């Protein structure tokens, strides 16, 4: 999932060669090329080839051991007395990979509001003022596979900043107004996500390769962030933020024993426990080959991203693949740079990257931009280079240059304490051996030309590349189809917020509570509702001929909070269904099985729509209730949503609206209308329900018997006929 970016003020300068340095992991010491020899008496300026270098000073890598506090939190402390600063970063194992599909953006919002929403004791604004007065910061963030809370301060302010840091990490308040603000910011990002073609290309490529229906490839939308409530964030925070799931690194100008004692005392009150966090979902292995064109008329260049799924850092072939990618497109001397930029003059930015992650496959990506008319010519040249590196060995010179560059720059991985500590924590967080970088160094040293060729042949599949081009096809010199691959158009339209996704802000929540209170009073009172533990209802269902179903009689039994059993006598024979809120089964004389697909969804909807559940929504049960207008609320919990409209005059429930799933095709809007109220156990219940689908009459049911609290037993509901 791509990160949203908020615009930044553009710097005024122009960089010459915007080629990022190879993203190398680093090894400990660099061994110099040769033993020092006496300098030859040379001409005033020697050739660079004749320079002789002394051995590199050793890199002192501090051996930082973790300290586990009684509450399970792990500490990593590293002293650095050069400047009077202290920094800290807590890592929490969570990520937006855990977003529920209907609430994509939950982790991101939680990460934002964790800090901005303030703590139990201080509002976000109070924290802002206090911290900025002393030029300190406490920040929070949740990205794909990591949650973090960090701080930075001058040494003299450490006690008060640590206190604020502790409170943000352990007692965030998630105030509603900051959720509203964060949503405004994210909405702005969504609205602007198609304004810059480079961003489009990267995003569409990433999402296509990982799969747009997977946590790695889906994106936030207006609908998904509109549904997120404060209690969603609180629950997300509670599930993942606990000491045993937290690693805290602190580096700077302090004494380690003193800091340890201070933190033990400070975090002694953080003792919450949760079950271990599940593993992140795996990346689906489905290939996503294809050529995709996002037409944008207001561009002068085509921005392209092409490639495939990559691998992880631990892969045996990773070193060879990194060398391969470096030779192909990693810097000034790379094949793509020399060909497409220097020789053809067709690009300023052109690079190839085998971007491996620690714990899940990264992406092999070739990206750049070229003037519109050169689009196809450039893409063809790139594909040729990919074929070339797959069919013949790279030259000895190319191999040496790439290996030297990788090995000689390893020292930079340890050039600051922050980097060093970060690497140690990464290895521990992702379960890598402490000496991984030394292993990597040895592996790079051993890479041969044959290795590079074998790795390229085995792992690169250019015929199955995903190619994304963002540009103006009317100005391409040749049509994109000239590449010999079928071209699919990408629809960049940003989906409007779904109508049923009401905005949950302070006002609509308050109004929602008001409406719920009114309907509860009207049916007999919250107390009577709360006392309902089970019901048994017998009814007769009549269908419109177009529904394709014949009339039937049905007995429903329900036990709070979510156990529902339906037994109906169809003209075709008896049918029983059971659902516990999540899963269930069906049974007929001809056969039985688990509920699946649309039928499961329908039964889950039935559970959600149980009269008493709806009327009690909004309490601590986790459902959120948001007013849509003066007499309608939207009730949502998990992936379930429905709208309940009350009679303006009586306050009684009048209609229920929801989407009904179909086996294939889009869900159909359904409306249930309640009438013929009778009192049972002090509660007004509808004895007649009319069903309309897509506005058209579908069916109706009439109750013949309605009993509440007869002492139903769960095993009776669960027993198969």
């Amino acid at each position, binding site marked *: 999932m791509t990160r949203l970016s908020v615009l930044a003020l553009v710097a005024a300068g*122009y960089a010459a060669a915007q080629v990022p340095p190879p993203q190398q992991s680093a090894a400990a010491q660099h061994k110099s090329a040769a033993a020092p020899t006496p300098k030859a008496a040379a001409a005033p300026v020697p050739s660079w080839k004749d320079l002789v270098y002394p051995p590199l000073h050793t890199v002192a890598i501090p051996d930082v051991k973790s300290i586990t506090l009684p509450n399970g939190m792990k500490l990593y402390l590293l002293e650095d007395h050069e400047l009077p600063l202290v920094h800290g970063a807590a890592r929490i194992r969570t990520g937006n990979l855990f977003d529920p599909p209907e609430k994509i953006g939950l982790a991101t919002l939680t990460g934002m509001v964790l800090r901005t929403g303030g703590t139990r004791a201080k509002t976000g604004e109070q924290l802002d003022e206090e911290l*900025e007065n002393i030029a300190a910061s406490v920040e929070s963030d949740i990205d794909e596979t990591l949650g973090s809370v960090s701080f930075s301060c001058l040494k003299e302010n450490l006690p008060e900043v640590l206190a604020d840091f502790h409170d943000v990490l352990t007692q965030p308040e998630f105030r509603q107004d900051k959720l509203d603000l964060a949503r405004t*910011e994210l909405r*702005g990002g969504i609205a602007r996500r198609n304004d810059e073609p480079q961003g489009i290309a990267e995003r569409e490529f990433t999402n296509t390769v990982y799969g747009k229906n997977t946590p790695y490839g889906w994106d936030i939308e207006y609908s998904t962030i509109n549904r997120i409530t404060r209690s969603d964030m609180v629950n997300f925070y509670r599930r993942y933020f606990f000491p045993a799931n937290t690693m805290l690194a602190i580096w700077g100008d302090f004494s380690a024993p003193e800091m340890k004692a201070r933190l033990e005392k400070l975090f002694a009150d953080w003792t919450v426990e949760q079950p271990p966090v599940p593993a992140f979902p795996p990346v689906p292995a489905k290939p996503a080959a294809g050529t995709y064109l996002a037409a944008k008329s207001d*561009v002068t260049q085509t921005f392209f991203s092409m490639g495939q799924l990559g691998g992880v850092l631990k892969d045996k072939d990773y070193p060879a693949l990194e060398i391969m990618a470096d030779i192909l497109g990693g810097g000034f001397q790379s094949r793509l740079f020399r060909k497409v930029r220097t020789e053809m*003059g067709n690009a300023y930015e052109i690079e190839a990257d085998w971007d491996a992650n620690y714990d899940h496959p990264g992406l092999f990506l070739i990206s750049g931009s070229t003037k519109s008319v050169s689009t196809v010519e450039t893409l063809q040249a790139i594909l040729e280079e990919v074929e070339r590196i797959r069919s013949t060995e790279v030259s000895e010179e190319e191999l040496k240059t790439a290996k030297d560059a990788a090995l000689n*720059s390893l020292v930079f991985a340890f050039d600051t304490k922050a980097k060093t500590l970060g690497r140690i924590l990464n290895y521990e967080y992702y379960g890598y051996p402490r000496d991984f970088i030394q292993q990597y160094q040895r592996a790079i040293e051993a890479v041969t030309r044959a290795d590079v060729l074998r790795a390229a042949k085995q792992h690169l599949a250019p015929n199955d590349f995903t190619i994304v081009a963002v540009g103006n096809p009317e100005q391409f010199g040749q049509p994109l189809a000239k590449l010999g691959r079928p071209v699919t158009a990408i629809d960049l339209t940003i989906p409007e917020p779904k109508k049923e996704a009401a905005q949950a802000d302070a006002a609509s929540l308050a109004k929602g509570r008001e409406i719920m209170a009114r309907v509860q009073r009207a049916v007999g009172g919250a107390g009577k509702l709360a006392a309902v533990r089970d019901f048994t209802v017998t009814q007769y269902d009549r269908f419109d001929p177009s529904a394709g179903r014949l009339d039937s009689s049905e007995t429903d039994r329900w036990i709070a909070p979510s156990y529902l059993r339906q037994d109906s006598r169809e003209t075709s024979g008896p049918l029983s269904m059971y659902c516990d809120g999540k899963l269930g089964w069906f049974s007929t004389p001809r056969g039985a099985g688990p509920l699946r697909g649309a039928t499961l969804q329908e039964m889950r909807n039935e559970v959600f729509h149980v009269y008493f559940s709806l009327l009690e929504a909004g309490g601590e049960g986790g459902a959120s209730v948001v007013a849509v207008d003066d007499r309608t609320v939207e009730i949502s919990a998990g992936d379930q949503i429905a709208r309940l409209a009350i009679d303006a005059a009586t306050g009684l429930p009048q209609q229920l609206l929801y989407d009904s799933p179909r086996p294939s095709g889009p869900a159909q809007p359904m409306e249930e209308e309640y009438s013929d109220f009778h009192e049972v156990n002090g509660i007004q219940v509808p004895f007649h329900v009319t069903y309309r689908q897509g506005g058209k009459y579908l069916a109706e049911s009439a109750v013949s018997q309605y009993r509440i609290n007869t002492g139903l037993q769960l095993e009776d509901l669960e027993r198969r006929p």
Partner: protein
Amino acid sequence: MMGHRLTLVLLLAAAVLPAQDVREFEKKVTEFALANGLHFTVVERHEAPVVSFHTFVNAGSANDPAGETGLAHMFEHMAFKGTESIGTKNWAAEKKALQDVEDIYDQMEAERNKGPKANQNQIDYLRMQLKQAINVAQSDVESNEYTRIIEENGGAGLNADTSFDYTEYFYSLPSNRIELWFLLESQRFLHPVFREFYQERDVVQEENRMRNQPGSEGQLMRDFVATAFAAFPYRNPPGGWPSDVDNLRRGMAQAFFDKYYVPANINLAIVGDVDPAQARRLAERYFGPMPARPLPPLIHTVEPVQDGEKTAVVESQSQPLFVAGFKRPGQDDPDDPVYEVISLILSGGRTSLLYKELVQEKKIAIEAEASPAYPSSRYPNLFVIFVAPAVGHTVVENQKALEDLLTRFVAQRINAETLQRVKTQARASLIRRLDSNAGLASLLAANYGSYGDWRKLFTQLDDLNKVTAEDVERVARSCFVAHNRTVAFTAAPSALRPAPANAGENRQ
């Protein structure tokens, strides 16, 4: 929560510490100048065996000759192409081939200069010849050898930057290879060869396209600056106007280099695991031979006083963006630190006024930031405020809110707490920047190049601490006035209709 006593203590602290910081820091600094005027600042940081290098040249796009915009930037690209010994397979042959290219190009231009009397067939023929000559010259090139050497030897962060007033070249190396930097850096400014010039012109055109896509921030800012300045060369983008770039010649780049890349106009900073004595020896050896040449002239053009507010509308399909700039004096003006303070008050963190009002409270913007010296600081420039409206909110709405905010800012004197906060932030920010070799090298070289003294990095904090609330009020009152303002914003394409009543009203 901030009692007066506490404030007083902090004020004192802020006044005392910078001097202390400088004295501590000075112990690690060695500076020297060669006979030819080239200045070096060397700082020892032995935390890790790495060194960062930064070369700062007091010449940038504002020095581009008229009709040759993009030249300083073009030279910057050339500085990576190597020398007579690096980047060539056969210098003698290549030299001749490069001259042939120029000769043919001269002929082509001579024909073109005939204007309506030019012979088009002759021009086409010469253009074909030119292509061939370029290919011949290319065959002697060892492409990208210069940068390959740096990367092979573990170079990190290799890049360069052409700004309006200066050009910078920088990278870092493992510290045992320090001599390589002295060799390569000195050679590129002693014997540069401007090879692959015309291919690189195409690359620069691609770069310019990339940065100025229609509807992009880059395009908005480019048009904004071009509108704000009628005369002063800040109005030209560093990448150059496309038609100028299309007509740049090798000889122009050579002339620019000869005029501006003189030792007294360049300073270098070296920070990291370095032995200053060794650095000096190497400097003498490798950079000594650079001949001293006279300093280039300063820019004489003075931007005339603005007669009234200026507005630029950029048609765009993108979401709206808006920028406003107010004319202000250059960095040598005694009020320079006041502009910095104003910028920090308006736009520095969540307590800053722009964020608090437009983003947090009114929620009409998702981003609102100020920049005190735009696009560059040496000569009179602009105090700039940039706003990205929130979904469903307009440029007009944000403009109005900004005007209200600035009017109030001018009218109400800021309180002591706010002033103290920004001074504390400035001090902490400086301390944080001392944490990086590359960052430090960049700051020291820039301060020496801009002010003639690296200590300015610290003493500017003293200047900042002297700023009073009265100063802020005085400067804000004179700066934030309508006739001093240029505004630019993006808007949906529209039919011909009277401006400015509807200007700025756009979709979403």
